[in-house]
């Protein structure tokens, strides 16, 4: 998906040095969770706490999207009664949370990652397989 954020225009001038991929964590089943292990390539760019906090927040948001609560049951039963046609008109709970996640990632990129020459890619653009972190060449780019 193409993005029109001005940050991206700036980034087009910088060269991509490397890409780091944060893989999925399957210890709790097929829920969408990412590994919080700090990759070695980012050691010089960002501190561990900040990174882990980002990934943990993302994990919590995805858990919220897939949560099996009373609200999702009611939605599911209602959808079943209408032969699932309400999915054509209504935005699902998951999609609402995905929008929240996109906003969070953009905010993190603006505040935390872009000043350090990094860029987070929304996992939905990679099929929820990985969190792609692009490392740009350090040319002392300041915001």
């Amino acid at each position, binding site marked *: 998906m193409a993005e029109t954020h001005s940050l991206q225009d700036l980034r087009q001038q910088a060269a991509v040095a490397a890409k780091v991929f944060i893989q999925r964590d399957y210890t709790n089943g097929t829920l969408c969770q990412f590994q919080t292990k700090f990759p070695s390539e980012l050691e010089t760019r960002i501190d561990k706490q900040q990174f882990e906090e980002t990934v943990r927040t993302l994990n919590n948001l995805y858990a919220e999207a897939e949560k099996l609560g009373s609200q999702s049951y009611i939605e599911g039963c209602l959808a*079943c009664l209408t032969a699932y046609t309400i999915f054509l008109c209504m935005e699902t709970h998951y999609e609402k949370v995905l929008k929240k996640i996109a906003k969070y990632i953009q905010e993190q990129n603006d505040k935390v990652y872009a000043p350090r020459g990094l860029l987070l890619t929304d996992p939905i653009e990679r099929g929820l397989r990985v969190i792609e972190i692009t490392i740009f060449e350090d040319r002392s780019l300041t915001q």
Partner: protein
Amino acid sequence: MKNCDYQQIDPKVVPTYASPSHIGTRGPRRVRRKWEVFPGKNRFYCGGRIMMAQQSGVLPLTLGLILVTTGLFFIFDCPFLVKHLSSCVPVIGAVLFVFVFITLLQTSFSDPGILPRATLEEAANVERQIDSSGNSSYRPPPRTKEVLINQQMVKLKYCFTCKMFRPPRTSHCSLCDNCVERFDHHCPWVGNCVGKRNYRFFYTFIVSLSFLTSFIFGCVSTHLAMRAQGGRGLVFALQESPGSAVELVICFFSVWSILGLSGFHTYLVASNMTTNEDIKGSWSGKSGDVATNPFSHRNVFVNCCSVLCAPLPPSLIDRRGILPVEEESAQMCHADIQLPANKNQRNMCSQGTKGLLESAALSPLLSTSCPQGKAQAALLGPERHSAADSEPSLQFSKGCRAQHSAGSQGNTSSTRHTHHKSHSKKHKQAALNISNPTCPDSAPSSKDGGHRRATFTQPLETSLCDGR
């Protein structure tokens, strides 16, 4: 009817930050959407909003049977039953029919939970990680990776087509050439895979269909019994209402199979299993390990809710997303230099992604999946069609289950199948004097997978000879 026109993506112009405004500045160029370059074997309609498998299977037959039976019911049985029984008979029939029809269309036309293929960088990253743990010479990534899920070891397989380790419960459908999440089976009656996203539609479809067929069967029997009253006989009743005879035959044969299928899937839903896992016996412990289903919530009610009432996950393939401009220009170049690039395509296919990235400078044409495989798969369409069609006819009464076993066979042999393709290509490359490393897993590939691979061999050879 528009078919997908598969196009290559230029890796040198990794299109991450293109803005749509560029499209306007580059002159009059039609906006292209991602479904147009989708690498799997699916068909898209209505601008990517509707998607189906490449072969519609017996979907027209399913639709025809349902429409004909319900139509005959309304024409022949309803007038009599409204007069002699109750006026809510056609109402109930109509409600059930609407349910069946809508859920059938939803099952057939929605994304079953296809996983998009790994990008070039991701695939290279995976191979780099594996290479770094081994020796320096290239070898293909190991086929499995073990992860601990709810205190149980589960093997994740590497998909050579999609170039990634498949998440748990994901399987590669060889008919659609896609990895599908929580893959249940490929259903020819519905003309699509059944996976995470459309399982609830499928389940509602078969349950409401079993209600519909039972209801129609009951109504037709009542109707004929009432007509045959007074010693007039069944033959007289059938003469008066010939449509009822057709309905009776159709319903009689389908009610058992549909009821059986509904019962089977109810069991699967209650134990949070997929057809694929049930057939392969993944959790039955036959391999000697203590295997219980790590995804089950150990509670029938919670299992049912999590399968049927969980939030509907979004489609990951973004069919209607606009294709970034750099990819478009790459595709324009592709059209001009198709022929000489093909040799390099075949070469790259067998070398794997590492070789692809290294020789990126040599050829502008790369994709995350085997480009030759796609072209061949398109040519193989008729062959696969005949293979797929033969299965339903063999076990008509078992409905979808026939295709399940064929599908799962196809799935287990899919990785070997992909190897087989690249192995056959190797012969052609030798003829063309292009060197190429051996595919190590070709030896076990000759064993199972049966006739399905046999049908692939000859067309593969002939398609490669077609002057490409």
